[in-house]
């Protein structure tokens, strides 16, 4: 990703900032100029609570350029509790443990690096809710 593009989209990628449409009250992610549900101007910012459900998932064995060293990794369609769906990597979980309907939560993680001298890109990823519980248990 280009550096300015990365900077422009930092709030949505680091903190899941979307919008609520003032006309139809639907939640929107990512933020856009026009509400995709009612075609009215999209509304004020909304921070999503970050929890959702796996709608579908896949394990990539043949990744695109830039992601070679990470393969295999799991990508999912995640339906957020507030409504919108997004595409994101899953983390803190083995591929064979993933299933449709699994509850997940957002965690900001490193996504990729533009080479050894380049920018490090961070983004939302999602992990199973039980991974959070296990982590909390381990730290007690």
């Amino acid at each position, binding site marked *: *990703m280009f550096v300015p593009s990365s900077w422009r989209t930092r709030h949505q990628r680091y903190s899941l900032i979307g919008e609520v449409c003032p006309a139809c009250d639907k939640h929107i992610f990512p933020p856009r100029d026009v509400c995709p549900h009612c075609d009215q101007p999209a509304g004020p910012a909304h921070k999503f609570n970050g929890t959702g459900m796996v*709608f579908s998932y896949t394990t*990539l*064995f043949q*990744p695109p350029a830039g992601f070679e060293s990470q393969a295999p990794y799991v990508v999912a369609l995640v339906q957020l509790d507030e409504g919108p*769906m997004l*595409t*994101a*990597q899953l983390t803190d979980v083995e591929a064979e443990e993933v299933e449709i309907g699994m509850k997940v939560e957002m965690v900001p993680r490193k*996504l990729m690096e533009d080479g050894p001298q380049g920018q490090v890109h961070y983004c939302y990823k999602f992990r199973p809710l039980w991974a959070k519980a296990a982590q909390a248990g381990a730290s007690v």
Partner: protein
Amino acid sequence: MGRFVGHGELGASWLLEVSKDTLKRDPGMKKVCIIGTGQTEVGEHWDKSILHLAHEAVTSALLDAHVESVDALFVGNMLSGALSGQENLAAAVADFSGLRNIEAIKTEAACASGAAALRMGYTAVASGLHDRVLVLGVEKMTNTLGHDTTAALGMAADAVYETFQGVSFTALNALMMQRYVWQYDVPDTGLAGFSINAHRNGCHNPHAMFRHAITEEDYSRSRVISSPLCVLDSSPICDGAAAVVLCAAGSSSLSDGSRYVAPVTILGSAAATDTLAVHDRSDPLRLAAVELSTQQALAQAGAGLDNVDFLELHDAFSILGAMSLEAVGYAEPGTGWRYAMDGYIDIEGDLPVSTQGGLKSRGHPVGATGVYQAVEAVKQLQGLAGPNQVPNAALGMIQNIGGSGASVYTHILGI
């Protein structure tokens, strides 16, 4: 299972309703004929540049049409900039192929770039702006290594919210396939029928990349690319070019010595769009732009689903075969895969599909595919399809999908 549930009615109950305004066809428009076709063999042409591939298809189409010149050139291509470092492609092709000085432009609609060029050519002739035009689809995908080509294909998807997450284009289709298989309880080899049918037909197409049959066992042993999607669910990375010459019905071009006694006519041409990202669709398993463009194209042609003698659908991945049969209106949601298992889509079946191998076996040089479909449909309609001839084929539907459903072009060809 009985006959197709769509029963030839426009707008089966599960489909989107099309605005009546979009179904009209201006009676003042000219009828558009296809008077010549050309195509290269699809494959890994390491010895040919994108311009050499284009030239080969252009030359054979002009020869087939018995004409030496055209008024304009429309080039369908997705990746010439990314994979050959060449933009301004249409001028480059015109220059290289001896068509210098004519109007030439490239159209880009991801994997539907070829059909987009066909529609641009169609509108130019139908409107009376041009009398005779050449439509070319060309793609050169083997200049680069696999990861780079995969990344370039990913540009069809949302750059920030899909591709940047590490999703390949194959992975987007795998996400749809995983959900489809889960939601509709499809067995492990449930989608294999589309690939088996495509390869069976591709065996007899001298221009196909893969001319060998595959079995259900081959399919189940096939390597997984992006679970649950395997190699034999996927169309290949390849090079190719195809071209058609269009002219207005009644044009002097038709009497210029063309051997096309009864030329094929484009009876319907329609395009529609949907959300760019799969995750933004209200139902990721539904191809709304297929639904809309199909109904519009059929209405223009004054035809119903039962009138369609064969369908060249966009089987870039087997899941798209199933979802397309549903969105076109032949199968209810969740049942499209069954039609491939039951012989309905065979050459001898109720609805022959991918009659020359489709994207899976003929190959999918992305921006060229839509024009290959047109070339193959012309051959079917003229009775020149060889061992894959659909008996008495009089009306064919060709459908080209760009992205995972964002740009869809549907054409109805008849004789």
